[in-house]
């Protein structure tokens, strides 16, 4: 079976700016591939190439094994695109927008009509279907945009930051829709700046920065690159430190570390369930009092930060990270 999409050695310059710098990626069919990166990393450029809107300066881009430059018209028959901005016509009603897109996908008039109604229902837009789109909220426009991208039953769907700027509820609704689509066999390429989103949805994730892939794998693999889990505790008394380090040594997979206050101790572990209990027990037996005790699993945020050195939107989501970084 051909790959859902494949990019090989893709280079793209915009004037002096190098948007993609020899990027290679591929994704299997029937999966969600997450493309993660800061603003300007080249995510949108890659999506635009895969959806035939841009041609690479160098390299090849294929969708379902079809060359997106030489056979662009055939690629357009199998893809759906929902870009960063809702690509809907504000003077038409919701229904008219979807019907129009269906006709342009070359569905028969009847089929376009039937499918438009079906999709509007699925995305809970039936009530608003006959209102001009300019009366829609941002979230409704996004849902409508997704309807439009789905009307041709695309085998591959490109979603460029689909939840950017949406409220939390609409975001989760969209996640559920994405999961449904995948379970029906659609392959999805999802770009996002939200690590949580990639973690939730993507089977595989590529982190890109400055037009290059800097890491690729499953979310678990990427996290493992950071050295796995960590048990962290904070001592009440500085004087307990030597005893504490002695007590936990046999549970640690690597040398335990402490931060500059000397109170927060991080113990790298492999089997966290067993180690957690073991370390707690050992501290208790040595009568060492701790004010907090936790298991810290590195988030994709950590992966991202350590790979790119750039802060992301979610940087403040995980207050533990500050100490764990200092501890290492």
């Amino acid at each position, binding site marked *: 079976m051909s790959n859902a999409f494949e990019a090989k050695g893709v280079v793209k310059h915009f004037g002096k700016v190098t948007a993609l710098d020899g990027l290679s990626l591929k994704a299997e069919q029937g999966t969600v591939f997450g493309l993660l990166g800061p603003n300007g990393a080249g995510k949108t450029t890659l999506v635009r190439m895969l959806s035939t809107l841009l041609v690479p300066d160098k390299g090849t881009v294929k969708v379902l094994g079809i060359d997106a430059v030489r056979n662009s018209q055939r690629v*357009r028959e199998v893809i759906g695109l929902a870009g960063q901005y809702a*690509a*809907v*016509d504000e003077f038409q009603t919701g229904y008219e927008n979807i019907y*129009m897109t269906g006709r342009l996908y070359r569905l028969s008039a009847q089929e376009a009509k039937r499918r438009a109604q079906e999709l509007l229902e699925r995305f809970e837009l039936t009530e608003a279907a006959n209102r001009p789109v300019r009366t829609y909220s941002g979230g409704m426009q996004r849902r409508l945009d997704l309807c439009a991208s789905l009307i041709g039953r695309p085998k591959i769907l490109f979603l460029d930051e689909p939840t950017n700027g949406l409220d939390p509820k609409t975001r989760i609704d969209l996640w559920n829709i994405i999961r449904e689509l995948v379970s029906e066999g659609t392959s999805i390429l999802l770009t996002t700046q939200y690590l949580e989103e990639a973690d939730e949805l993507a089977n595989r994730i590529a982190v890109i920065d400055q037009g290059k892939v800097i890491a690729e794998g499953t979310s678990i693999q990427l996290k493992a690159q950071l050295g796995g889990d960590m048990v962290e505790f904070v001592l009440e008394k500085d004087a307990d430190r030597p005893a504490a380090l002695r007590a936990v040594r046999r549970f640690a997979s690597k040398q335990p570390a402490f931060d500059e206050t000397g109170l927060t101790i991080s113990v790298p572990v492999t089997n966290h369930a067993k180690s957690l209990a073991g370390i707690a027990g050992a501290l208790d037996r040595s009568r060492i009092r701790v004010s907090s005790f936790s298991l810290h699993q590195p988030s994709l945020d950590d992966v991202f930060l350590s790979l790119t050195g750039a802060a992301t939107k979610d940087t403040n989501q995980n207050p533990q990270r500050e100490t764990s970084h200092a501890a290492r």
Partner: protein
Amino acid sequence: MLLAEQLHWPIVDTWTITRRNLLRYVRLPRLLVFSSIQPVMFLLLFNYVFGGALGASTAAAGGQYINYLLPGILIQIVMFGGVQTGIGLAEDMGKGIIDRFRSLPMSRLAVIAGRTLADVLRNVVVVGILLIVGTLLGFHFQAGFGNALAMVGIAVLFGFTLSWVFACIGLAVRDTETAQLAGFLFIFPLVFASSVFVPVQTMPTWLQPFVKNQPITQVVNAARHFALGTPANGAVWKALLWCFVILAACMPIALWLYKRRTA
């Protein structure tokens, strides 16, 4: 594959886009109202402000300036209508919708053809309104019904042709304000240095060769021939030839500008 089969989807695509563009006038009726008021205003202003002074020099056209003016104004107005094509396309280019169109398996030409056709249909409405107002001001067709239809036909055809010129401008500049400015910059010298408002013989001799041979003069003379029965002197076939040449040049250029793939 039969030609009819090959053309089926491009025609459906073009109609789908035409419909989309026409719906805008249905949803925003004031757009149609104002795009009709402007031509009527031009007709009234030119007729009453210049009519007195110019009536004498255009006496050949049945003695009344309105008879001379109306065919000219019609051509001017369909050209102004053409500017809208450029503005509309530039507006689309600046929005996400064009990315959607370009990612669909639809005909590439349909996005532009659908826009020019919608503008042709709007022009037909505006031409109709101008003919009614012109008649109220005393305009008469003087060469029969068939020729009257031919005049409307050539005006609309020329509007369609100019729509493709402005489509190129709109697709090249990609923002509405520049499209509008560039459009009028292109139009004004051509409209005023032509036989739209005054006879060519009244202009300086150095200017006359340009004025006599530029397309707008030919088209206006052809329109006047159909409306008033004045001698055509080859204006009809020259006008048609101009339309054909301009379309043949602008269609591929517009398509190329649309397909041009940059950010």
